[in-house]
C-alpha cells in the first residue's frame, strides 16, 4: 500500500474558503462537497464531516450561500447550497487574503 500522505487538519477559515470556491462551479449538497474536496485535493484533505455542516450553516447565516431542497442524482431529497452574489465577493476577498498570507509565509521561509 502506498504510504498515506498525512492528512492535514483544516482550520475553520480555510474550510470556508474551500466551500465557497467549490460552490462557485455550481450548486452542490454536503455529500458532494466532501467528495469533491477529497478528489480535487488528491486525498490530501479529508474533511471532518462534523465541521462541514456547521460551516455550511455559518455561511448560510452570513448570507454567502443559500440553501434549497432538491432531488439528488439518485432521486432522494437533499439540501443543495448555492453561492450568492455576496458570497462571490467574499470568495474573492478571502482568496486575495489567502494569497497574501501564502506569499508572506513564503518570504519568511525563504529568508535565511
Amino acid at each position, binding site marked *: 500500500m502506498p504510504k498515506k500522505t498525512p492528512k492535514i487538519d483544516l482550520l475553520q477559515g480555510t474550510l470556508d474558503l474551500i466551500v465557497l470556491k467549490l460552490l462557485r462551479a455550481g450548486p452542490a449538497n*454536503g455529500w458532494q462537497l466532501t467528495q469533491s474536496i477529497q478528489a480535487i485535493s488528491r486525498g490530501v484533505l479529508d474533511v471532518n464531516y462534523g465541521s462541514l455542516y456547521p460551516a455550511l450553516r455559518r455561511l448560510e447565516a452570513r448570507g454567502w450561500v443559500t440553501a434549497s431542497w432538491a432531488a439528488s442524482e439518485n432521486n432522494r431529497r437533499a*439540501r443543495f447550497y448555492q453561492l450568492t452574489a455576496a458570497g462571490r465577493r467574499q470568495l474573492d476577498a478571502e482568496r486575495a487574503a489567502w494569497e497574501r498570507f501564502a506569499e508572506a509565509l513564503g518570504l519568511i521561509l525563504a529568508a535565511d
Partner: protein
Amino acid sequence: MLERLRLRLRALLSPRAMERELDEELRYHLDQEIARQVARGMTPEAATAAARRAFGNTTQIREQVRDSWGRRWVERIEQDTRYALRSFRRTPVFSVGVVATIALALGLNTTAFTIFDAYVLRPIAVRDPGSLFQLSLIDRRGTRNDFTWTDFEALQTSHEAFDQSFAFHTLFARVDSAPAFGQLVTGNYFTVLGVGATLGRTLIPADAVPGAPPALVLSHATWRSRFGGDSAILGKIIRVRGRPLRVVGVAAPGFGGLGDVPLDFWASLSLYDDLVDGDSLLSSRHPAPVSIVARLQPGVTAKQGEAWLTSWLRSRHADAPERERPVGGVLNSRATATPLSPELVLFFAPLAAAFILVLLIACADVANMMLARGLARQRELGIRLSLGAGRRRLVAQLLTESVLLAVPAALIGFVLSRLTVDAGVRFMFATIPAEVAPIMHVVPLKPDSRIFLFMLVAAVGSALLFGLAPALQATKPNIVQASRGDFDTDFRPQRLRNALVIGQITVCVLLLICAGILLRDGGRLKRLDIGLDTHGIVRLDLQERPGARERALAVLRDRPDVQLIAAASDPPFGRRFPTVTAVDSNQHAHQLFYDFVTASYFAALRVPITRGRGFIDEEERSGAPVAIVSAGTARALWPGRDPIGQTIRLTLDPATAAHDPLASRRTARVVGIVPDVALGTIIDPFDSPVVYYPIAATAPGTALLARVVGNTGETMRRIDTDLTQRAPASIEDIHTLDAYAAVGLYPFQAAYWIAGALGVIALLLTLAGIYGVLSYVVAQRGRELGVRLAIGATPREVTRLILAQSLRLAGIGLGIGTVLALGVARLFAANIVGLSTFEPAAFAGGAMLVLLSSALAGYLPARRAGRLDPIEALRAE
C-alpha cells in the same frame, strides 16, 4: 439581507422544523457514505459502523449548527425559567414572602401613578389634544389675565399661528336647585374639539346668535348620574340660575371638558349677560373677561405661538397707556387635565418620593431574603462556578428568578391598586363635609396602557434592585477554597445586609417623623383659636338679579331661628383677601388686606371691638369714609399711638380708580379696633394687617352671613327650603361656614392620612426585615452561640448579644433618619406657610416608635438564641 432575516425568523419561530431538516440532511449524507463503503465491498453492517465513525459525533454537529442559528439566548431563557420555577416550588415560603412583599409595594406605587396618570398624563378625549392651548395675557404686574370679547373676535380673523379658537366662561351655578359646574362657550366649541353627541346634538353656531332659544348640552356622566340616563331628556327645560334652558343633547361619553374639574353642562356664551351678573361681555369700558383656547396651526410650535401672541397683543394695545399695555402672551397646554408644570412637579415630588421609598424598603427586605437564600445555595453555585459556568450566565439565571417573582407580584399589585383606588375614592367622599360631596367631581381613575407600562417597568426595576446585588455577591468564586475541595462561594453578605437594614430603618424614621409633623400641624390648625366664632353661621351667596337680595333678606329677617344677619365682601374661609396700599404719616407704604362688612359683622362672628366703636347703620347705608382696623394694622401704621381718630390714606391705581369700590374711601377715619383674627385662607398668618370698611347688606357683591340657633346644618336646610318657596331663584349657594373651614383643612388631613399610612406600612415592612435578618443570623451563628453557651455564657447574655446587634443597626438608622428628617422638614416649611419645622413631639415620637419596634422585632430571635441547646447547636453543621 432579506434571506438572513428570514432564516433568523424561521430559527426563532419553528426550531423543530429546522431540526428535522438538519436530521434529514445528515441522514442523506450518512446513507451516501454507507452506499460508498458498500460499493467498496464492505458488508452493510460494517459499512454503517464505518460511516458512523467517519461522521463523528452527530450531537456535537447538531449543537454547533444550532449555535449558528442564534437561538442560544432563547434556549437559555427557557432553561433558566424552568430551573427557577422548580426552585420556587421547593421553597414555597420564600417565594410567597417575596411576591407578597413586592406586591404590596408595587400596588401602592401603582395607586399613586393611577392618580397621576389620570390628571397629568392622560390626554383628554378630544381631537389632537396636543395642539390645544389656553391663551393668557401677561400684564405689567406679571399676572395672567383673560381676554375681552373683542380680543377674541380679532383673534379669529388671523390664522398665522392659530388654526381655530373658541372662547368660554366657566361657572358654578345652581341647576334645578342642585350645584353644578358648567361652561358658556362659543358656537364652534364642539366642532373645534371634535366631540360629538350620544343623544340629540351638540351646540352649534346657530345657538350663539343673540335671540336664539337658549340651548343646553349635558355631559354624559351628569346625564347618567343626575338624570338617571333618561332617554326622554331631550327637550326638557332645565333652570340654570333660575333661567330656563332647553336640553338639546348629551355629549359623547368620556368627555367632561378641558381642565381638571369634569363639567356638567354647556350653554352658549351669548347667554352670558343673562346668567352672570356684573359687567357685560360687550361693555365698552369694562368688559367681562373670557377665556380663550386655541389650536396651533400644524407645524407651529408652542414657543412660536407664544411669540406670535405676544407681538399680536402688543400691536393691538399699542395705543393704550403704558400702564395698561400687556407685556406678553403665554400658552398653557390643555392636552391633559392638569398640565405638567414645574410647580406641579415640585409639589408632588415629596409625595412621589415617599411612595418610592416604601418600594425601596420592600426591595431591601426581599434583597435580604435573597441574600439568605444565596447563603443556602453557596455550595450549588460554587460547584457550578468551579465546573466552568460563566459568572455572567449564573447572574443572568439568578436575575431571571428575580424577574419571575416580580411579574406575578406586579399583577397582584395591580389588583391591589384597583381596590385601593376604589376604597380611597369612597373614603374621600365619606370624609369630606357632607355639603361638599355633591360638588366633588373626580376625574375617572381607570387603568390604561400607560399604567400597565409603568407596572412592567416598576416590576423589572424592582427585580434588578433586589436581585442584582445578591446575585453578584452570591457568585463570587472562591478559587482557593475550591482547590481544597470546599466549593462554597466567597459569600460574606454581612455588610450588605446590615446596610440594607440600616437603610430601611432610616427611611422608616423619615416617613414616621414627617407623618408626625403633619399630624401635629393638622391638629393644631383644627384647634386653632381663629378669633372668630364660625360655628352656627350660615353663608348665603345671592343671585344678582333685581329684587333677589331684598326678597332673600326679607325671608331671613322673618325667621325666628335667624338671630343676626351680616354681610361681607370677603367672608372668612373664602378666597384670599384683596390688598391695597396705604401710606402712614412718614410716607411709608404698607400692604393691607381689606374687607367690606356690615355693622353686624363683628357681632355675628363674635369678634369684640377692643377700642372705639363699631359701624352705625347710617355709615353702612352711605358708605361713609370710616374704617375699623385690626390690631396688626394699628401696630404697623401707628406704632405706640392711639389709632382711633387717625386717617388711613390709600394709594389707588389711577387706571382702575374709576371702578374701584375703594375710590370713595381713599381717606378714612379710624373709629374702632378689633383683634387679629383668621383671614380668608387658613394658612395666612393672623397678624397680617386688615382694614374693614362699612357696607350695607343690600349692596351687591357681598355674601350674607346669618347666625342661626339650633343645629346649624338642619337650620340651613330649612332656610334653603323656605327661600326656595318664598323667594325662589334668589340664592345661588348656601352652606354652613364650618363646611368652608373643613374644606380648607381637608388637604392637610388627607396629607396626614397618606403619610401615616405610608409610615405604618414602612414600619411593618422594616420590622419584618429586621426579624428575618436576625432570625437568619441566629441560625447562621448557631455553632458560635452554642460554643458560648457551652463555656458558660448565660442565656440572657446571649440574648443581649443578639439584641445588641439589632439595636446597633436601629441606632445608626435612627441617627441618619433624624438628620434627614430635619432637612426635609426645613424644605417643607420653606414651601408651605404655617407649618412649624421643628416639632419635638413628632421627632421624639417617631424615633421612639422605631426604636421600640426594632427592639421588639429583634427580641424574638434573640430569645430563641438564648434558648438554644448548646449540644444540639454544636452538633449541627
